[in-house]
């Protein structure tokens, strides 16, 4: 019989530990499944939110350009109708880079020199920041701070020192509101304000003069009508007045103006009693229930479009509706269908825009409330996992003590439990991530319709999935620390209970 001198017990290799852990999980599959489900639910929630946000952002990016394009006609019609408000002038310059055409245009309108322009731009940026602060407040707070003044009039009211003092006092009393800059900077800005305002007024007057010039070249047409010629003579007139209009934008403006005119024509047509009756009888509803929405939905099919155009022609001959100007796309059935489709697209884009507005603040731009919900759900899951693992440790106390009698180190026992939790967390996270992403994508499909298919950001979704799985593992590991410590502290004599 040999004597063995005492040495340090070697630690087990990682592979061995994993194998032993997997063995344990395999035997207790049901309990393990519960942990997996718990982690899976939390992860699904997280990925759902993340994927929705990610898809929403991607859709937003894709739709923003399209939206701008579709609105160009209306935008230019508004621009050429009246000179811009001071707030608009300041905002336009504040958000533009130095080489932006809008800066050149502003300089031209206000006859601002090379030196004046940079000063004006920095002043405009400050003014825009303050203006956006004030416009971001709710009505009650705004009332307290500046009574009924709005926009640039707010700056004017602070000429009075007493008003300024009152403002400072109210600002201090509203503890939840943090002003954009220090009050010192605000005072400095207010000192510069008269100069900025004067320049902005010059710009405004310049625009006014330009618009007056353009009005003369309207030759009795409505603005939209004139804009259909934006690629040609009218565009030239606009450029001569000093506004910047490149050929590509002009083309888009002309297209959109034409579309708007045709759309308006069709929408106004439904005001005629006869046509209402016709459409009503075709749809099987009362004439007074015939709305513009219903009309557009009807006009989506080519057959219904040509039917409607016929009725329209008959009514035209009788009542004499305002005729349309010659357009690049004549108003036939095909065009009507296209208009209806564009109408549908615009509605979807507007819906997308509305949905964007809900995102603000919180973690990863998820929104304050959502971040809070996520945190709570993670906490609950963590507690659940800790509970389940503690039960597991209590059940297995004899087994753990026996393992220690066989030579298991405390660290090994702890590692075994933590590993088990991590593995289950990873599996739960993976399953949860898949489910979450599917649900998120499904909901986005329902919210945005076909727009989503063009804009699915696969890369971002995979990253969200990876984050969720990592979080699942971390959550499970963290939740298992306490039970593992208890397990590793178990005395081996627990295995031997001699009666």
């Amino acid at each position, binding site marked *: 019989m040999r004597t063995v001198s005492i*040495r340090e017990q070697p630690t087990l290799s990682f592979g061995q530990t994993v194998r032993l852990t997997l063995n344990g999980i395999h035997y207790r599959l049901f309990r393990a499944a519960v942990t997996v489900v718990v982690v899976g639910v939390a992860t699904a929630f997280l990925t759902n939110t993340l994927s929705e946000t990610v898809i929403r952002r991607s859709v937003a990016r894709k739709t923003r350009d399209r939206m701008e394009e579709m609105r160009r006609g209306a935008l230019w019609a508004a621009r050429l109708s009246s000179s811009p408000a001071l707030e608009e002038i300041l905002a336009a310059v504040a958000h533009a880079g130095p080489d932006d055409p809008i800066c050149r245009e502003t300089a031209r309108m206000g006859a601002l020199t090379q030196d004046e322009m940079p000063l004006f731009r920095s002043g405009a940026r400050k003014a825009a920041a303050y203006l956006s602060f004030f416009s971001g407040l709710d009505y009650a707070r705004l009332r307290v701070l500046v009574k009924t003044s709005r926009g640039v009039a707010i700056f004017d009211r602070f000429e009075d020192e007493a008003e300024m003092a009152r403002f400072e006092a109210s600002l201090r009393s509203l503890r939840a509101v943090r002003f954009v800059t220090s009050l010192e900077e605000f005072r400095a800005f207010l000192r510069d304000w008269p100069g900025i305002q004067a320049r902005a007024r010059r710009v405004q007057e310049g625009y006014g003069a330009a618009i007056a010039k353009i009005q003369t070249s309207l030759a009795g047409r409505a603005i939209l009508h004139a804009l259909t010629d934006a690629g040609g003579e009218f565009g030239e007139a606009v450029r001569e007045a000093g506004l910047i209009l490149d050929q590509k934008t002009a083309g888009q403006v002309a297209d959109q103006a034409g579309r708007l005119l045709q759309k308006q024509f069709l929408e106004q047509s439904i005001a005629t009693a006869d046509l209402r009756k016709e459409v009503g009888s075709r749809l099987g509803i009362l004439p007074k229930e015939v709305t513009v929405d219903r009309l557009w939905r009807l006009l989506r099919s080519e057959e219904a479009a040509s039917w409607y155009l016929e009725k329209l022609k008959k009514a035209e001959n009788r009542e004499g509706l305002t005729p349309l100007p010659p357009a690049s796309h004549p108003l036939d059935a095909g065009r009507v269908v296209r208009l209806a489709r564009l109408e549908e697209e615009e509605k979807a884009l507007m819906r997308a825009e509305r949905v964007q507005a809900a995102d603000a603040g919180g973690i990863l731009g998820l929104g304050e409330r959502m971040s809070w919900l996520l945190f709570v759900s993670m906490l609950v899951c963590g507690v659940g996992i800790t509970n389940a693992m503690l039960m597991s440790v209590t059940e297995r106390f004899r087994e753990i003590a026996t393992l220690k009698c*066989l030579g298991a180190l405390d660290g090994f026992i702890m590692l075994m439990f933590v590993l088990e939790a991590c593995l289950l967390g990873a599996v739960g996270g993976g399953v949860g991530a898949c489910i979450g992403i599917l649900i998120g994508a499904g909901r986005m499909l329902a919210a945005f319709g076909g727009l989503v298919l063009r804009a699915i950001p696969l890369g971002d979704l995979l990253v969200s999935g990876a984050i969720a799985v990592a979080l699942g593992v971390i959550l499970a590991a963290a939740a298992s620390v306490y039970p593992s410590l208890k397990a590793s502290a178990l005395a081996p004599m627990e295995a031997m209970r001699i009666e």
Partner: protein
Amino acid sequence: MDQSKPRANSTRDADRRIIIRTVNLRKHYVMKGIVTEALRGVSVEIGAGEMIVAMGPSGSGKSTFFNMVGGLDRPTSGRVFIDEVDVAQLTATELAFLRCRKIGYVFQSYNLITCMTALENVTTPMIFAGVGPDEARERGMSLLELVGLKDRWFHRPIEMSGGQQQRVAIARALANQPAILLCDEPTANLDHKTGMEILTILQRLNKERAVTIICATHDHRMMDMCDRLLWVRDGKIERVARRDEVHVSIGSIDGK
């Protein structure tokens, strides 16, 4: 009724090396302010290759004594020397080594790991000792053969009877060829015949491989086989006697 014949000592007591030595062991537990003294000064010397039987009523400190001797617990005062190494001086990893290599444990309730097969149960201590998987499997199979369970190596504990489980437990206890075997009522849950098989194995180990066996038991047959008997009562060793100084009678039922 058989009268057991006094056995000649196979080895002189004086020639034996002392493998376990306790010096004035004391242990008390404090629970909610109440102090319970489990051991009140136990001093024993156990020679290598001896078979010792410890007896005593429940609450006598028998299990506490076993925990001390087996390196499972530390005394509040006094010392335990295993192979002349003071157990209290060992670090946690060294203690783990001790439990892995030097001492084998056989429990009353078998304490097999339910999610492992018999072979895996037997090879677990070998894995902890750093033995390679192939060698571990070979040695495990030979150990199972030793206890007569070679054909059941792939069975889980739940698929085996009590006696078979206890045999697997003995095979596991022998996994790293320990010098000491600590048995807690090994035959208590077994029937007469199976118990006899277990005892035969233990006796063979003691005689052929010179494994020191320390048992807590009430089994008269084991008392018959042992070298010394310890009576534990009230936290002290009441009496120590050699086998040949004691009269053990074993009854049988089959009328022979």
